[in-house]
């Protein structure tokens, strides 16, 4: 960076001038206000994945190599919220049978395998008076897992940014949506294959999904 000879200095000044001219040009082409990008709706990526089902990328055959959710691993929910949600789901899933008649079905989600598109059953959203539940009826087994793996049920927003765990799932059952959470705001029902590694975040390996 020596400017000890005249040529270096001239070159440097010419660069400076060019930089400032370029700055002015780019500034005027960018506009007076800082651009804001709209968040693309999640259905766009889901559509891309669905379309790729017929022309799969090389890596998508491996079920542990994942779908878009791998790219959107949840980080924002505090661990406590998730653990609380899991605990609540397990507890209330046991108690739910006793709640009785005052329930209304408010939606139904067809579930399908992400990789193959095969139908996998339904998730029925029920308003219980004290909150919402998801009744999962699987039309086929989720598949065997290794000792250190388990399946987990989630509801996810359409930006695929926010999500809540409804707890581990092994078969049909009723799962409580965490208090204050409206499934209409988290309309993607997702079952993922998780590693038993203590990390409460979505591991990215979605297996089955559907959207309200």
């Amino acid at each position: 960076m020596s400017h000890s000879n005249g040529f270096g200095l001239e070159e440097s000044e010419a660069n400076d001038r060019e930089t400032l001219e370029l700055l002015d040009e780019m500034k005027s082409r960018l506009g007076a206000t800082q651009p804001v990008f709209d968040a693309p709706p999640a259905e766009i990526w889901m559509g891309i994945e669905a379309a790729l089902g017929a022309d799969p990328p090389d890596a998508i055959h491996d079920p542990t190599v994942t779908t878009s959710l791998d790219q959107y691993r949840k980080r924002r929910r505090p661990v406590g919220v998730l653990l609380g949600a899991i605990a609540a789901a397990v507890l209330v899933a046991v108690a739910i049978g006793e709640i009785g008649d005052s329930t209304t079905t408010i939606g139904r989600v067809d579930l399908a395998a992400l990789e193959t598109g095969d139908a996998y059953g339904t998730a029925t959203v029920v308003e219980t008076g004290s909150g919402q539940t998801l009744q999962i009826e699987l039309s086929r087994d989720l598949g065997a897992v290794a000792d250190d793996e388990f399946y987990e049920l989630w509801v996810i927003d359409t930006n695929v940014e926010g999500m809540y765990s409804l707890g581990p799932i092994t078969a049909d059952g009723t799962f409580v949506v965490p208090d204050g959470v409206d499934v209409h705001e988290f309309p993607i029902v997702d079952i993922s294959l998780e590693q038993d590694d203590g990390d409460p975040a979505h591991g990215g390996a979605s297996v089955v999904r559907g959207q309200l």
Partner: protein
Amino acid sequence: MTSAVLARDLDAPSDAFCEYRHVVLTSSSENPEAWLRAKFVAGEADALAAVYAEHGPAVYTYANRAVGAEKAKDLTQEVFLSAWRARHSFNPERGSLGGWLMGITKNRLIDSYRKAGRRVDEAELSDTVQARMAGDDHHSFQSLTDRMVLSSALATLPDRQREVLTLAFWGDRTQQQIAEETGLPLGTVKSDMRRGLLRLRAELEQSDVPQ
């Protein structure tokens, strides 16, 4: 729930790319962009997701402003699918993936106008776009394109270059002021600014190449 993100903060909401970039950085000792490009061209699904996470907002926003939200969804999907299928034709020497994607988006937008029975010359496009963009400070298809290409490219610059340019573009700071505010040496501010601007110009040129 926020539905929009500032271009300069693109990395923040897009956990996707941060995470992927982390993988990239730990997987390749040097140029992470080149590594991602290589993965994309090689056809790895994760790379497509990372490319979408990085460029999806810009492509969608561009389409949204030009043809409205409903058509923009389909169009964004088409852009990424056709980019994926044509990934072997991507030439990194002519510019970045972002510039290439924006070029594809531009062509798709022109196609969509053509399908709608409109004449294809840009003056005609401008009228339509202008009507849709009432209130915006840009009034032609070309200026919308420039703006989107540049914003997209800016978002993918290295952090320091992006910060320096953001302060210069919208903070109206001089190089000296930027150096004082950021604590960077003036020479660094100058070279970051120059490199960043040259990259932006290259991206603009790339987007003008017919795809």
